[in-house]
C-alpha cells in the first residue's frame, strides 16, 4: 500500500526566509498530490494540488514541485511570516479510488520573528 513520509516533524525558520517542506511517497506514482494547512484545533484547509504532468505549481508565496522520479514533492513558502506557522500535510490518492486519499503525518512549521 502507498505510504507517505513527511520529513521533519518540526521546522523552525526565521521570518523572511524560505521554508521548504518535503513529502516522499513509496510506491506507485500518484496522478496528483495535494498540500493542506492545519492550524491548532481546526480542520485541514486545502492549499494546492499538483498533477503528475506538472513539474511546478505556484500560488502567491507558495510553490509546489512534483518529481515522480524521486517520488517526492517539495512545498516552499517564500518570504515566510509568523502567520504561516501551522502544520502542513501532504496527501495523495490511494490506488483504488481517485477520491480517496491518504495523508502524511504533517510537518509543524514555526516562523520566528
Amino acid at each position, binding site marked *: 500500500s502507498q505510504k507517505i513520509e513527511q520529513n521533519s516533524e518540526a521546522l523552525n525558520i526565521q521570518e523572511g526566509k524560505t521554508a521548504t517542506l518535503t513529502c516522499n511517497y513509496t510506491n506507485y506514482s500518484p496522478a496528483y498530490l495535494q498540500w493542506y494547512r492545519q492550524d491548532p*484545533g481546526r480542520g485541514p484547509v486545502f492549499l494546492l494540488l499538483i498533477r503528475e504532468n506538472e513539474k511546478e505549481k505556484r500560488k502567491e508565496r507558495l510553490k509546489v514541485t512534483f518529481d515522480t522520479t524521486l517520488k517526492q514533492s517539495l512545498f516552499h513558502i517564500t518570504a515566510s511570516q509568523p502567520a504561516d506557522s501551522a502544520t502542513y500535510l501532504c496527501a495523495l490518492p490511494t490506488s483504488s479510488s481517485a477520491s*480517496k486519499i491518504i495523508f502524511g503525518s504533517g510537518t509543524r512549521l514555526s516562523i520566528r520573528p
Partner: protein
Amino acid sequence: DAGITQSPRHKVTETGTPVTLRCHQTENHRYMYWYRQDPGHGLRLIHYSYGVKDTDKGEVSDGYSVSRSKTEDFLLTLESATSSQTSVYFCAISEDRAFQADEQYFGPGTRLTVT
C-alpha cells in the same frame, strides 16, 4: 469551513457506551468522509460515502459504523466506545468530478474522550 458542521464538538463518554457523531453539509457534495487524527498517526480514514446509502471502509474501520440516509448527513457510530477511540474526529466532503482530482473540505472536528 465550506458549509460543514459537526456535532457535538466535544464529548466525554464512558467505555462501553454507544456514541454517534454527526456531520452535516450544505454543499450538496457527493463524497463524505470520516477521519480520526491522533498524534504520530496523522489523519486516518475510517469510512467514507460516495452517495446516499453507499459507504465503504477506510484503513481504521474496526469498531465504527456509518450511515448516510440523506446527501447532507453522514453519521459515525461507535457501538461500544473504547479508550483507544479517544481522538479528534474530522468529517470531510468532496465533489465528484469525473477524471479530476478533488480537494477535500474539512469540518471543525469533534474531540471525543472515552474514559
